[in-house]
């Protein structure tokens, strides 16, 4: 994507392109661990969706269906909040994408 020069920017560093943080793939923040979804244990309480500080839990028709790794920063909050036993979300090692 072409980057704007300083003369093209709106004044005051305001951002009129509301929602453009979607373009920033924060998944690159993950540092070697990622949450993995185990559908067989999931009760679809959606705690993971509530607590996810980004927008990385994919919900379809009221059901947890997976993780959007483009935006998951790997914080692990979903695996802590997941109430099932065994857990429906666990942190697993992943190769760092450098």
């Amino acid at each position, binding site marked *: 994507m072409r980057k704007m020069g*300083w*003369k093209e920017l709106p*004044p*005051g560093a*305001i*951002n*009129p392109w509301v929602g453009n943080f979607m373009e920033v793939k924060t998944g690159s923040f993950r540092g070697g661990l990622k949450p993995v979804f185990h559908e067989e244990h999931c009760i679809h309480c959606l705690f993971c969706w509530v607590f996810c500080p980004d927008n990385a839990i994919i919900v379809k028709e009221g059901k947890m269906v997976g993780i959007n790794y483009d935006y998951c920063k790997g914080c692990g909050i979903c695996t802590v909040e997941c109430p099932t036993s065994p857990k429906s979300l666990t942190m697993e090692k992943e190769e760092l994408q450098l």
Partner: protein
Amino acid sequence: MAERRILNGNAAIAEAIRQINPDVVAAYPITPSTAIVEYIAKFVADGLMTTEFVTPESEHSAMSMCIGSSAAGARVFTATASQGLALMFEMLYIASSLRLPIVAGIANRALSAPINIHGDHSDTMGARDSGWIQIYSENSQEAYDNVIQAFRIGEHRDVSTPVMVGMDGFILSHAVQDMLVEEDDKVKAFVRERNPLYSILDVDNPITVGPIDFTDYYFEHKRSQFVGMENAPEVILEVAEEFKKEFGREYGFFELYKMDDAEVAIVLLGSTAGTAKEVVDELREKGRKVGLVKIRVYRPFPAKELADVLSNLKAVAALDRAASPGAVGGPLFTDLRASLYEYEKRPIIVDYIYGLGGRDIAPKHIAEVYERLEKIAATGERGELIGYINLRE
């Protein structure tokens, strides 16, 4: 008709704010600017103003509220001094980079330690790189006039930059002086309504204010911020011209006092100009070719205009009421000396640090500076680069 009043600097600024009646005033009291806030609180309580007057828990919060209100399109004023301005430090940069034309009245005061409540310029000089326009006043009249003009300058859409108006703590803030207060309607008409660049309350055009930039955009955003400061000189002169037409008093980037055929000159900011003018008058009566340059607009620094005036002199002294330890001299001196570098013909220039913590500067001290400048002019020998006035060894 303008009314002749006897007001101290704090009351003079408060009068201007009563007349302008900004949408929001958020301020935390601190000596010596406390009375500005007290007067405004009273005006609001007495129903003389419709301003939303907010009393936050600190200066940091005060400036934060100013920023939020200004981003919503409001006309905003605050007042502070010294430690209060220092506590605002991080928010000052946010106000200027968001291009929010907040006006702040500053009763210039020393910074701790030791604790000292008296006048010097350390507080605003510490904020000289914060991206705010800085205007300094010589007396109550100028403090009043400068605050009125500050709204027009800062809120001009080409500028959209916050403005701080300085007046020396106690020397001006608490000393009563004879001055003119203009008619309410005329002042209101002069400052007009604010027409903001953007507003967070404009729901049809949603924006994010204060978003994050990474290495790819921060630099471009900072550069675009500087445009406001670059556009300021033209607007400052335009507003001064209109002010002169409306109210009769003349302003520019600086005031020249008996500079026409001067061979040596002192350059300074603020109330000491009054004392220096007396000294210049006395020396002129004795036939000595001395002059004074009182800088009104310190940011943006009128480098070329000052150098044009000073380059043909033989010797110049900058009087700094703030120190910059480890630098080549006080802030005014380093700016002035850098401005003269472009000129092949330029005067010998020396610096004096004076008046820290309200230390008195008397006519005899200023006369001694002129005496030394004349000696430098005669011999071409500069001597010490940085001196101190009225300091015990």
